[in-house]
């Protein structure tokens, strides 16, 4: 199975751990990811704030490049990239004016199209294409006794709920159970972490992150599993500031779900990239 792979800027920067842990896991499951040659930034939420036509155009170059590369589908692990790419496709399809304007622009650099290639999330592919049975087969060190709070963030099931429920998504829950972990009942699965506001307007932004950490801790989670590099960053990077502000400890290790998969598969330390995380997870009983 081959997919066009769109990492996005974060996965090469602060979200390195995500890419480093995702690629080996996908390889184990028989999925080959071919990075789109010369991909560019998708624009994320920032560009949408300036001009949606331009944002759509910027994102569309990647869609067109992926379509050109010839694989049937593309994979975008970063939540914001996943949303922006999907949104751009919808935008071009729902508004023929926009579709034509973007295509015209793409033609000037020898590209076209981009609305035909589905943009999929790794959870979607793991659950619905590869299947949990294949995952279970590769679990050599089940994460027994590890209590995980599954945190989906807001962008992968809203507003486009293509592969999971908007209110109570379960794909990561099921994946974590397949890895042998204990999934903690976590009602704040899709509540905003504060996004970029944690850096620009800390007062409201940090409150959002704090709420998630506090509830995860209260529910007895050992670790929070995320899908988004910004969520992962927000939840672990500001614990000092949060402690100072709310007078409450909020240290819960935050990992990418792919890192937990790597651990369960028994992959090496480099391949699970746990060293990239700022807060260390408690060591697993039968470590690699």
């Amino acid at each position, binding site marked *: 199975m081959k997919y066009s792979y769109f990492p996005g800027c974060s996965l090469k920067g602060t979200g390195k751990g995500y890419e480093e842990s995702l690629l080996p896991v996908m390889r184990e499951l028989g999925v080959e990811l071919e990075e789109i040659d010369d991909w560019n930034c998708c624009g994320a939420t920032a560009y949408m704030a300036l001009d949606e036509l331009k944002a759509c155009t910027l994102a569309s170059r990647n869609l067109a490049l992926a379509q050109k590369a010839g694989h049937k589908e593309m994979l975008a692990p970063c939540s914001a990239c996943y949303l922006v790419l999907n949104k751009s496709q919808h935008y071009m399809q729902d508004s023929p004016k926009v579709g034509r304007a973007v295509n015209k622009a793409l033609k000037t650099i020898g590209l076209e199209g981009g609305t035909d290639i589905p943009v999929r999330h790794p959870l979607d592919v793991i659950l619905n294409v590869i299947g949990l049975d294949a995952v279970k087969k590769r679990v050599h060190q089940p994460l027994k006794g590890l209590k995980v709070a599954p945190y989906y963030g807001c962008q992968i099931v809203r507003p486009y709920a293509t592969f999971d*429920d908007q*209110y*109570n998504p379960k794909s990561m829950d099921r994946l974590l159970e397949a890895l042998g972990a204990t999934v903690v009942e976590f*009602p*704040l699965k899709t509540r905003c972490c504060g996004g970029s506001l944690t850096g620009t307007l800390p007062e409201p932004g940090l409150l959002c992150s704090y*709420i998630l950490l506090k*509830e995860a801790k209260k529910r007895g989670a050992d670790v929070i599993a995320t899908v988004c590099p910004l969520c992962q960053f927000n939840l672990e990077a500001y614990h000092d500031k949060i402690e100072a502000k709310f007078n409450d400890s909020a240290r819960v290790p935050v990992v990418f779900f792919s890192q937990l998969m790597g651990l369960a598969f028994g992959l090496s330390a480099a391949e699970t990239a746990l060293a990239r995380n700022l807060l260390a997870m408690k060591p697993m009983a039968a470590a690699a």
Partner: protein
Amino acid sequence: MSAQNNGNGRETVRIGFYICHCGHNIGAMVDCPEVAKYIGSLPNVALSRDYKYMCSDPGQELIQKDIREHRLNRIVVASCSPLLHEHTFRTATEAGGLNPFFFHMVNIREHDSWVHTDRGEATAKAKELARAAIGRVAQHKSLEVKRVSINPAVLVVGAGIAGIHAAMTLANAGKKVFLVEREPTIGGHMAKFDKTFPTLDCAACILTPKMSAAGNHENIKLMTYSEVAKVDGYVGNFTVTIKHKPRFVDAEKCIGCQDCIPACVFKEPKFADEFNEGLGKRRPVYIPFPQATPQVVLIDPEVCLNFDKKTGQVKEKGGCKKTCVTACGDKDAIDFTQKETTEEIQVGTIVVATGFQAFNPQRTPQYGYGRYQNVYTALEIERLVNASGPTAGEVISRDGKKPQSIAIVHCVGSRDYKTNKWCSRVCCMYSMKLAHLLKEHTEAEVYSFYIDMRTPGKGYEEFYNKLLDEGVHFIRGRVGEVTDWAFTPEEEGKLVIRVEDTLAGVVRRIPVDMVVLATGLEPKSDAQEVRRLFNMSCGTEGFFLERHPKLAPVNTFTDGIYLAGCCQGPKDIPDSVAQAGAAAAEALALIDKGYIEQEPNTASIIEAECSGCKSCVPLCPYSAITYSEDKKKAAINEALCKGCGTCVGACPSGSIIQNLFEDAEIFSEISGLLLKV
């Protein structure tokens, strides 16, 4: 103005043409004298007049006078829409001594005067339309209005409050009524309510006398645990097949003593009790509620040990000790071998009163129904507060505690583009009623979260005031979600409602012990199948469609079939009862007249020319065409035919003709329009 012999040896056609000014409506835009003059010059036109108001008494008398004095045998009036005065002029024509179908009407008001701004163009069009009519009317034949007799028996489908009331009204008028109900007892949803708004009458207390009367009325044949399987026939003459589901209890022998129930081998009731919305339990042998009518128990084959789960058949051997049979004793009413039976009845009219179903809040997962145990639907609360409910009226939530604070969430599955767009009309009122009852039973703090307070009925606004006086907290803000994550200590262990108090302009978090969802009303899930049985339509929302939303709310497009109650749209009990009375009155009007007259624009098959290809048979939307295997010919039932013309157009051999729309009539109209002057 000379009449010509049309050369075929038929009677000479002498047409009287009248163009109406209709005051300024037509006269201002169409030069009526000019048109009259022009039409007067055409062949076959014996007389051509223009007149101010043709529909007036003098106008109608003029037609009659002219027919006699000028020996007219065809009449054309060019005026307004036939929907308004075709009947008036046909009657005048008939009073003048002619067959009313020798009259033809031309619309030069809605179709001409009212849509033109240029007098010249309007007048030219009027001339063309009138000329077409002159050509057509010459081809008109004498026709007789069909009369179909009406069987005085009535079928009422559904025995909720609407069905019961309709049945009682008809029965009291001396008509025989078949009252068919799908559930084992009559009473419908109203039987489940505790009190009714705004009077806070006990629902059972006002309903059971009516149920009793309906069960005992000599003119009502009650058929419970039965469904309509097929409806054949047409207005006045319906043949309905009713399917009776087996109770495994002989209704003739059972006296309703209910001794069998505690005698059942299931010492403790184990199965979800439908009447109590799953909050209580029952045994395989049960009666839905104590005042059920008829007072006959029934056995559920899905859970009774004497039935094979896979085949649904009664077990030859094995099963249980059948202690129920022992308890029944010499009444010998239990019969495990009972089978489903069918019965055919003949009725003249049908009243459909099949009711609604409550919205399933699992479709709105954000409210936590099914996820958090203390989230309830309104119907569940009705049973909870009811003295004959599963907790004898004590309001105890599923976690065993008495709630100190309760939230009522309005508009669940209503006014929501994602689920049901419409307003369910009764939820604001029943939410307030529940607020009152819950406060009465628990003294809890009650919060009601609404978008608008809809209190349109008599005494409804006053009821709202009463609730305000009782200290119920009304907060205008639609609830986005119900959650169990607590942010402050006071929220621990509770369900939290986060909402914008829009009137105060602030976001609030309110912790409560119990959440009540005011679920909306929607059409029953099998509405599409049921509507096909009765040849009715459904509106876009899925409720059965009335003939006219304002002027004919209980009629359908099928003659002889009427609607009453929530199956036509969400409504409260007073409106359901009113509609039931209205439907009964419509049926009675038909029955008492004894016959129905039908427009003779029906189609008929020229048997000699029919090739027996059967193309027409499945096309008829009114199932009016049958095929005879013996004769190898199709035939049309005139009484069922509505004159839609589909078969006429489809017949490959052209052997179907339609009265009032015969080829000669249509082609002459077209020729009239296209004639180059």
